[in-house]
């Protein structure tokens, strides 16, 4: 079963040519990540399978997607930002802010569709703020998004320092809605979060690879600060602000998904989540200096990151070993990427 799930990703990124030496260098990091994903699945299958239940099962993938669906959405937005050579540290705080806004508005009796729209708007406003600082005031993305991260976190703490539970019946129905396919260990659950995540991934993929905006995103990250793109008449300002708005909206969507997942809003949600979003993007082969990477690479990255946590959990280690191991794996991964792909020199 696993083959069926991972193969399309590997195949689409490995491009058409069959012979190995002819593979486009750009696809190598993604290919590397896919190979590691398959390796991890095999190791898991060998180590954790019991006679009556294999490690690799539909349920594993179902859980993997369900537990990481918000991360998939964040990673897609983050990929766009990183491709332009920027970074968005605000996503974790925005997820928390959106969760709290949803909780407060639903408690106040605002209709659900309006609340969800406002949630997206909150994300978009945060993203726009970063974009304006980055593009018009020449503030480094790191600082601009860091400031918005503190801004959002501070607003969260003003709204509430306690967990607010969401009791709205409509929201509850949305959260519990789902279709079950199969039974036992071959169960695959489709829920609202999964559908949203798939839509975001497909939309991200199409925008990045089949639109002019997508090409401009790559052009912005080519190392000349968008100078060449601007001279070519590409919409530099629109795109640069746009990627941050997109990332903000993705954070808004992820905030909704997280609220669906926990059925509450909490001011301490998502501390360090920005790193959880950046790590898969880096694992998926996107360079942090921009200009090189793929949305599907980030998707593979999220699965590797998620599977890593599953494996560590299966080992039953103490929480501190988990942190150390994640660091070690991150290091091994980055080194593997370096071996697999000859990197562009930073210049």
């Amino acid at each position, binding site marked *: 079963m696993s083959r069926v799930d991972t193969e399309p990703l590997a195949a689409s990124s490995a491009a058409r040519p069959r012979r190995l030496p002819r593979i486009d260098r750009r696809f190598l990091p993604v290919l590397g990540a896919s190979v590691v994903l398959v390796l991890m699945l095999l190791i898991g299958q060998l180590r954790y399978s019991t006679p009556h239940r294999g490690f690799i099962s539909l349920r594993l993938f179902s859980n993997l997607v369900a537990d990481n669906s918000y991360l998939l959405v964040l990673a897609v937005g983050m990929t766009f930002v990183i491709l332009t050579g920027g970074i968005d540290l605000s996503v974790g705080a925005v997820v928390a802010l959106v969760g709290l806004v949803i909780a407060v508005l639903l408690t106040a009796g605002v209709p659900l569709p309006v609340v969800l729209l406002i949630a997206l708007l909150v994300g978009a406003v945060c993203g726009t703020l970063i974009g304006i600082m980055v593009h018009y005031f020449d*503030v480094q993305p790191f600082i601009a998004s860091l400031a918005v*991260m*503190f801004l959002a976190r501070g607003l969260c*703490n003003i709204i509430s320092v306690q967990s607010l539970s969401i009791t709205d019946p409509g929201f509850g129905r949305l959260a519990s809605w789902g279709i079950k396919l199969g039974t036992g260990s071959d169960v695959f659950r489709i829920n609202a979060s999964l559908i949203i995540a798939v839509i975001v991934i497909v939309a991200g993929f199409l925008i990045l690879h089949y639109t002019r905006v997508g090409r401009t995103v790559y052009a912005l990250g080519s190392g000349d600060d968008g100078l060449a793109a601007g001279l070519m008449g590409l919409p530099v300002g629109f795109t640069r602000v746009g990627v941050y708005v997109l990332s903000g909206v993705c954070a808004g969507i992820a905030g909704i998904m997280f609220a669906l997942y926990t059925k509450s809003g909490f001011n301490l949600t998502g501390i360090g989540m920005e790193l959880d979003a950046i790590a898969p993007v880096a694992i998926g082969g996107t360079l*942090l200096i921009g200009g090189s990477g793929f949305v599907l690479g980030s998707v593979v990255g999220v699965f590797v990151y998620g599977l890593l946590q599953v494996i560590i959990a299966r080992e039953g280690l103490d929480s*501190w070993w988990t*942190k150390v191991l*994640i660091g070690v794996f991150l290091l091994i991964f*980055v080194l593997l990427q*370096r071996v697999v792909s000859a990197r562009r020199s930073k210049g």
Partner: protein
Amino acid sequence: MPHDAQSQSREVVDRQNILVRATSHHMFWPIVALVVLLVLCQVMSPGFLAVTFTDGHFFGQLVDILRTAATPALLGLGMALVIATGGVDLSVGAVMAISLSLSLTFLRGSSSPDSVGTVAVAVLLGLVVALVIGAFNGFLVVGLKIQPFIATMILMVAGRGIAMLVTKAQITTVTSPPFKWLGSGFVLGIPTPVIIALVVFVALTVLTRWTAFGMLLESVGINAEASRLAGVPSRTLVWSTYIICGLLAGLAGIVYGAPTMAADANNIGLMKEMDAIMCVVLGGTRMSGGKFYLSGTLVGAVILTTIERAVIVFHLPSQTAPLFKAIVVIAVVVAQSSRFRDWAQERRLRRQAGSDSIPAEKVIV
């Protein structure tokens, strides 16, 4: 590119009056922000600025602010050097936790935690480990050529795990007067952390400004490839900044944890890397590398600490401090941006042209 534009606009500005020259100085907006904050606090709570001298020690809110600012200042000073080379060190918060945990665990295990000698060994142990971690970060960045953000993120995640490993996820506490003195003692009436931060500041200033070290760092940050071709030993330089940054992070951890003498590996130094980066940026250093300002970083540290104190003075929940930090950072970086400066200058010229009926071109010339 931005440096060219900066120096060009600076040339124009130089011909203007002193006020304009002052506003374009990298320290102008940070100091304005600090003064405004302090004045607001004084208005809200009269006596805020008062400093008294009793029992041979200085007391007062200002002294407290300086004492608390020592931690972000130590982190920021190291961070400024790293940022000057175009890098960043996200692991400083975790390094704080590791150093403090190690020092306190050693003290707890020792037979005489009260003796100055034992404390010196404990502190040295914490610092050596911090130095080793810094060297490791440098190795990842320089030796393995991993992007600084990712390279230091590895230890940011793993480091906290290591610190918990040292303390076995317990909150390690000890009683040792000499160790406590590092955080809450006084030297000549001035709090020890302030003295430590000042000594580090002076040492780094001497190192970077009296030797070519600082200039070479800036050259690496501005154009690494050109510097390498010009014969600048950029690998050694960059590596040394990570070592210094790690070492200072360890020192910051010890100074930070000394007053309470409790090592909570999970929370010590949490998000402190972000504070440190903010200090550096508030001081006028740009994240893209190049010119760096150690004195500005100190001012940045004092601003952030004053905000934390101001929130309490204004009777707001202390958790709202990030919001005000964000507002001040946004205000300062926008005020420092070249676009804002151009806009302000244009407006001033237009106003002058309007009132004195002097053609705008004359004023520019």
